[in-house]
């Protein structure tokens, strides 16, 4: 239990001393994961809503496929992106391996299915409620996509946060495509893995606590903003 109390005081030390190394790592983590969430949101929300409103052959298969992609192992995604971006791979000439961009690509691939799938579920509920009325008003299914996204905006934040949570928490993909390079691609989770492997268990745990606090803060803040705005406009 000594490890836990030690880790706790260590994490407080790190936070309150505004440790520059820690700040660098935290900022890179946020930059990578937020970028991935933005990309996944841009693709996932419209895709999820469209899958809810459009009827086409093979729709069930697509949905099942998308749902199963929610459980993609980060290591596999990392490996695929690694092979694509490697100098010997098809996109090697871009020189993106071991850069933050590579990490953003990997995390985007990882969480787009999550955001799209959850967005589809939210959209299906809403579409079930709206379909007759919107059809009566002359709204085509594709035209309903922005309506669904706008009217489901508060519930959709949950989908986006789920994607963000997954992105900040995963280590497998960013470790492989980023290479955990000091000052370049070292993020919270890869640092935790590294410190664990160095036997610095208290430091690793302290970083873990900071990561949890960070993601908790972002979640709580999002929900508070959401409820504030929702209270005003519903």
């Amino acid at each position, binding site marked *: 239990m000594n490890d836990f109390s030690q880790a706790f005081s260590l994490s407080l030390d790190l936070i309150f001393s505004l440790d520059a190394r820690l700040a660098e790592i935290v900022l890179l983590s946020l*930059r990578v994961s*937020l*970028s991935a969430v*933005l*990309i996944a*949101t*841009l693709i996932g929300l419209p895709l999820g809503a469209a899958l809810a409103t459009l009827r086409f052959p093979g729709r069930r298969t697509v949905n099942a496929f998308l749902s199963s992609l929610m459980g993609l192992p980060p290591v596999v995604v990392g490996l695929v992106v690694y092979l694509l971006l*490697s*100098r*010997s*791979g098809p996109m*090697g*000439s871009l*020189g993106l*391996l*071991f*850069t*933050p*961009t590579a990490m*953003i690509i990997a995390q985007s691939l990882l969480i787009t299915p999550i955001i799209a799938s959850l967005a589809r579920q939210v959209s299906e509920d809403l579409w079930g409620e709206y379909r007759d009325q919107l059809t009566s008003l002359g709204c085509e299914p594709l035209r309903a996509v*922005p*309506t669904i*996204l*706008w009217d489901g905006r508060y519930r959709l934040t949950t989908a986006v946060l789920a994607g963000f949570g997954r992105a900040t928490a995963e280590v497998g993909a960013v470790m492989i495509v980023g*290479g*955990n*390079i*000091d000052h*370049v691609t070292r993020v919270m989770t890869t640092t935790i893995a*590294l410190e*664990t*492997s*160095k*036997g*610095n*268990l208290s430091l690793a745990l302290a970083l873990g606590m900071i990561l949890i606090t960070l993601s908790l803060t972002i979640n709580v803040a999002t929900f508070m903003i959401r409820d504030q705005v929702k209270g005003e406009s519903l």
Partner: protein
Amino acid sequence: MIMKINRFFAYLLATLLVLNTNIAFAADRYIVVASTTSTENSGLFSYILPIFTEKSGIEVRVVAKGTGKAIRMAQDGDADVLFVHHKPSEEKFVTEGYGLQRFDVMYNDFILVGPDSDPAGVAGNSDITAAFKQIADKEALFASRGDDSGTHKKEQGLWKKAGVDYEAASGKWYRATGQGMGATLNAAVAMGAYALSDRATWIAFKNKGDFSIVSEGSPLLFNQYGVILVNPEKHPHVKAEEGQAFIDWVLSKEGQDAIASFKLEGEQLFFTNAQ
């Protein structure tokens, strides 16, 4: 409402660009070095690289993997310089045309660590082959890297010398973790298993528990590090000039002095032997 949605997505896109402006303007003068966990985890690179960067203006990005994976990385052209510790593999790398020339940089040694309870009774035995034999005879737990790293290859060689079929014992007393040195040491400490480690990682390792060095000093445990520039003819994008500058510096008196002056807990971890 459509406009609001569009505006929302436009904001997202703008945020994305702002977040990543510095990606587009990232430093161009940098090289990627494929190296081993021992050099990275011990803190050697964090110690010597700023000195080099200060002098040359070249940033060095180290990707630390097992020697096997590091070599594979360099073969694929994903690194400019290879900095590892398994001479036969390194020479093969050069012979096959992936690297230009191999240089000795530094050495240290491997050690056998184990629990103070010493179930195999090998403590103090400097004959490493005998110690390995005894662990196998007593079927005492042994944690192996099992990841095709330099340390793993060294360990395999030692089992062969001791005449032990370790593969047959895998899953019984022989436990292959398939992970880096640190992770394997964590596992060894948790299981009370013997493990072969490079000295640098062991000294830097913070979770020793009741473990200590049980065997050291055999000439068989010599651990040589070498450095190789990846062949630009194989991979035209290799930053040969910057990579060569790094190699030249590592082999220079200044570089060698920097390596030799790196100490942890008062101990020198790497001994230079560039020619």
